[in-house]
């Protein structure tokens, strides 16, 4: 499977990565190699293996609904590049919530 430049641009946009000129071709080739490698896994016979989303054999790991202490506001904001009045400060967002 070979990735097109458009696909690389799309993936970069989703990951919020800026690509310089020429990098699209570079990553198209590199990512295509990775996908080819992954494709080889498709040759394994998985007929008798159930689909699995988890490698650990655990189920139903839950906690009781009990409150634990939170961080202080100062601690929560300690690593923020910018904070003001107890808030994290980010570049203005005016468009719709994408979620």
């Amino acid at each position, binding site marked *: 499977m070979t990735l097109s430049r458009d696909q690389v641009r799309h993936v970069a946009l989703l990951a919020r990565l800026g690509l310089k000129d020429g990098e699209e071709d570079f990553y198209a080739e590199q990512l295509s190699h990775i996908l080819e490698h992954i494709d080889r896994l498709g040759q394994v016979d998985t007929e008798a293996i159930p689909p699995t989303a*988890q490698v650990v054999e655990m*189920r139903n*790991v839950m*906690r009781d609904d009990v409150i634990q202490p939170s*961080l202080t506001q100062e601690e929560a904001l300690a690593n923020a590049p910018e904070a003001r009045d107890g808030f994290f400060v980010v570049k203005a967002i005016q468009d*719709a919530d994408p979620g």
Partner: protein
Amino acid sequence: MSVDTKTDWEAVIGMEVHVQLATRSKMFCGCSTDYLGQPPNTHTCPVCLGLPGSLPVINRRAVELLLTSAMALNCEVQEFTKFDRKNYFYPDLPKGYQVSQYDLPMSRHGWIEVGGKRVRITRVHLEEDTGKLVHAGDALQSAETSFVDLNRSGTPLMEIVSEPDLRSATEARDFAVELRALLRTIGASEADMEKGHLRAEANVSIRPHGSDELGVKTELKNINSFRALQRAVDFELRRQAEVLESGGKVVQETRGWSEPEQRTFSQRTKEFAQDYRYFPEPDLPPLSFERAHLDALAKELPELPAARRARLVARHGLSAYDAALLTAEAELATLFEQVVGHGAEAKPAANWIIGEILPAYSGSLPAAGGFAALVKGIAAGTFNREQGRTILGRLLDGAGFEEASAGLSQLSDQGELAAIVDRVLVENPKIVADYRANPSAIGPLVGLVMKASGGTANPGLARELLKDRLDR
């Protein structure tokens, strides 16, 4: 569709409702969910801040509240379920993904009865809430920056998706009202729309009557009350009809509801399709439910609003309309039943609750015993309506019935009242003359008797005595 347009359009509406579950702690960490009105970023920890290396653990109570809700919505609970990561970038989502459920939601295929009609529920799943962006209303905020508060980040959130079975703005509203009553009854959520516990989004499209194809839909957001929901859907139905009738095409997009402008507006920004790249959440082992556990939860379900409505109608002879008003607020239905249990008659009790308590209801109720005594006192003629309102106000302020009704009783003494009636007739010859021309003018005379008695007269008796003298 109640829209004045050329073509006979049919509305097709599906709902997507997000509900904050009433847990004490968050979905995947022990931070308190009691952050309303608290300073920003005071209810966070490494897990809900999305700090590297932190690991989530599922809140058992949130899972149980979701299962209970799903059962109340007649859904099939899936025996095996898992969480997935929904990937997107937004400043209120610190991890860069939301933990949600994709292909194996906790439950599917349910229904809820709305106004005698079954609305199908597609799925009910569990996820986590995002933080909050503060866009405006802060003097320090400039056009270049937004502020982020992550107190809400990681609050357990239930998403309920319906099939497009609703056919009018009123039905959409009724759906949300019914859902709220249901969730409050089972204690899954406070479900207060204005506080953001329950956030309804409507997917709206129209099609010519008789068609079974679906039109292009828009998704309505920013809806903060039942009234706003009804108005937003109504506006959008009309807008789409106008677009189509003027030869245009409806664009699939998200539209926000503007309360000040009473209209929907496009929130479309970038022209690329959503691509969330869901994959299984590796940090959370899957869940499976034992039949016995599910059966035990189902047994604990309280009586649901639909059943309660039916019972209020059958046992107490209330109209379907009154029963619906009472059960929309479970506490009011409970008060009604307690008051009847104290020996008050059902209909006057319902009338007083619906007429005098419901309109300004914000959570405070009179004690059932005192309120029952009041309803009985009015039925027996001890108090007139005005006095009843005064007593109710005192009961709501916490007074006992004796204290609340002290000094208040209706003047029903024939002789005493007759003296007042005679005086009013002598003093108001003009109104008496009006009455002779038009007998409906008795109203002002009754009012004058009430006034002359200092509000204590029995209005029925006053009317009788007036008529008796005037028609003699």
